C-alpha cells in the first residue's frame, strides 16, 4: 500500500477495491458494495448514478468516515479516512438546516462550531447569505422560506467552511423542476470559485451529465462500478441550454442504455 502512496497524490478521493458488508437493524448481513474502485481528482466534479439501493449513498458515508469499508481502503487527500475530515462539506437530500435558528445563525453554524467568535462568524455568514441571494432573509426562520430557499441556506452553510471536498446526496431531488434548474446553476457558480472536488449522487441522469466532468454508473446491488463516462461538454455550462446540445443527447442515450439493464434486473 505505502509503495503506491506517491502516485495518487493528485487524487482528492480514492477508493481501492472497497467492499462493504452491511448489517441491518434486524441483524441480516448483506453486501452493499462490491470491489469498488475509483478516484476523484482535485477540482473535479464527479456524478454517481445507479439504480435505487445500489449503494450510492454508502460511498459518501465512507468518505465522511461514518461507515468503514469491510475490505479495501478509502483515502481522502492521500490519507486513509479516520473520522470526519474538516475539509469535507456535505449537502443532504432532506432538510438538514436547524429550524430553531435564523438563516444567519444557520449559515454561521460551521464557523462557530469551529471556534470562530460570533461577530466574525456572522459577518462571514452575511457575505454568504448575499452570495446565495438571500440578503433580505437573514433574520427569517427556515419555516418562513420556500424549499428552494432552504436549499440555498444549506449551500451557504456548507460553502462557508470552504470545503475542498463537497459531497452531495441527491440534494435537489425534492425541488420542483424550475427551482432545481436554478439551483444547479447556482451550484456550478459557487463551485467554480472554489477549486474543490465534488461527488454528486443523483438518480437524475440529465442532472448528472449537465453538472459533472465524469459520470460513474453503478450496477444494481451489490453495487460495483459499471462504467465511467467522460463528459466533455464545455464550461461554463448553463443548465437550461446544455441539455439541448447534441453531445448531451448522445451521452444521455448511451448512459441510459447502461442504466436500463441495471434497473431492469429488479
Amino acid at each position, binding site marked *: 500500500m505505502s509503495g503506491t502512496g506517491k502516485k495518487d497524490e493528485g487524487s482528492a478521493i480514492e477508493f481501492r477495491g472497497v467492499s462493504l458488508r452491511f448489517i441491518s437493524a434486524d441483524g441480516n448481513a448483506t453486501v452493499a458494495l462490491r470491489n469498488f474502485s475509483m478516484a476523484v481528482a482535485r477540482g473535479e466534479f464527479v456524478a454517481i448514478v445507479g439504480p435505487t439501493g445500489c449503494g450510492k449513498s454508502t460511498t459518501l458515508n465512507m468518505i465522511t468516515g461514518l461507515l468503514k469499508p469491510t475490505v479495501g481502503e478509502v483515502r481522502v487527500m492521500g490519507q486513509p479516512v479516520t473520522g*470526519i475530515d474538516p475539509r469535507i462539506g456535505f449537502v443532504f437530500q432532506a432538510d438538514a438546516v*436547524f429550524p430553531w435558528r435564523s438563516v444567519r445563525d444557520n449559515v454561521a453554524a460551521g464557523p462557530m*462550531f469551529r471556534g470562530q467568535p460570533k461577530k466574525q462568524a456572522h459577518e462571514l455568514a452575511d457575505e454568504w447569505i448575499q452570495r446565495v441571494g438571500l440578503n433580505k432573509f437573514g433574520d427569517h426562520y427556515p419555516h418562513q422560506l420556500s424549499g428552494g430557499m432552504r436549499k440555498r441556506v444549506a449551500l451557504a452553510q456548507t460553502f462557508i467552511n470552504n470545503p475542498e471536498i463537497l459531497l452531495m446526496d441527491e440534494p435537489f431531488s425534492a425541488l420542483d423542476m424550475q427551482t432545481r434548474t436554478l439551483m444547479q446553476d447556482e451550484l456550478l457558480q459557487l463551485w467554480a470559485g472554489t477549486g474543490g472536488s465534488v461527488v454528486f449522487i443523483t438518480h437524475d441522469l440529465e442532472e448528472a451529465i449537465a453538472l459533472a466532468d465524469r459520470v460513474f454508473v453503478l450496477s444494481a446491488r451489490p453495487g460495483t462500478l459499471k462504467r465511467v463516462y467522460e463528459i466533455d461538454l464545455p464550461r461554463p455550462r448553463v443548465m437550461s441550454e446544455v441539455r439541448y446540445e447534441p453531445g448531451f443527447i448522445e451521452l444521455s442515450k448511451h448512459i441510459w442504455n447502461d442504466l436500463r439493464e441495471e434497473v431492469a434486473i429488479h
Partner: protein
Amino acid sequence: MTDIAMPAALSDEALARESEIAQGRIRAHRRNIIGLRLAVLVIVLGGWEIAARQKWIDPFFYSMPSMIWDQIVEWVRDGTSQGPLWKQVLVTLEETVIGFLIGSVAGVICGILLGRNKLLSEIFSIYIQIANSIPRVVLGSIFVIALGLGMASKVALAVVMVFFVVFGNAFQGVREADKYMIANAQILGASPRQLTTAVVIPSAMSWILASLHVSFGFALVGAVVGEFLGAKEGIGLLIATAQGAFNASGVFAAMIVLAAVALLADFLLTSLEKRLLKWRPAAF
C-alpha cells in the same frame, strides 16, 4: 390599470367593500361565540342554583353557586379556620412551584443524559413506561410517614408527579432528534458537546415544553393530595377540613381557588413557550 378594463365587480372599491363585509362577518362570528359561551355558563350555574333552591337536588350535599360564592367571600373577608386564605394559597403554591422546579429540572437532565446514551436508553425505556403507568399519588402516604406533616412531604409528592412526565418527554424528544440534522452538525464541525447543546436540546425543547404544561397541573395535584393526606396548612387541608365538617360549599370553593391558580400558571407557561419556540410555524 392596464388598457384592458377590469370588470366593475373586480374594481378596488368593490374589493374593499367585499373585504369589509367579510371582516364584519368574522367579527360577528366571534361575538356570537363569546355570547354563546356566556349563555352556557349562565344555564349551567343557573340550573344548578334553581335545582338546589327547588330542592330537586339536596344543597347540603351538592351546594349551590350562591353558597359557594358566599363561602369564598367569607374566606377572603374573615379568613379560614386555619388562617387567612391567601396564606393557604401561598403555602400550596410554594409546594407546587418547588416540586415543579425540582421535578422538571431533574426530569430534563435525566431525560437528556439517558436519551443520548443508546445502551442506557434501551435498558431503562421499559422501566420508564412502567413508572409512568403506576398511580404515583399513592406514594404520598409513604412521604407523609417518612417526611412528616411539613412541607417536605408535599414537595416530594409533587416532584415525583412531575419528574416522570418531564423525564419521559425529554427522553423521547432527544431520541427523536433528526439524524440528518445531527450528521449535518457533525460535518459542519460540532463537537459532541456542541452537538448536545446546539442540536439535541433545541430539538427536544418542544417536547419538554409540552410536558411542562401538563406537569404543572400534576405538581398541583401532588401538593394538594399531600396536604389532604396530612398537613398543618394549605388548600388541601382546607378541603379535608370542609369534608370533615360536611361543608360541600367549602370543597367547591377550594376547588375554584385551585382552578384560578392553575389557570394563572398555565397562562404564564404559555407565554414562556411562545418566547422559546418563536421559530416554530404559528399553525402548529
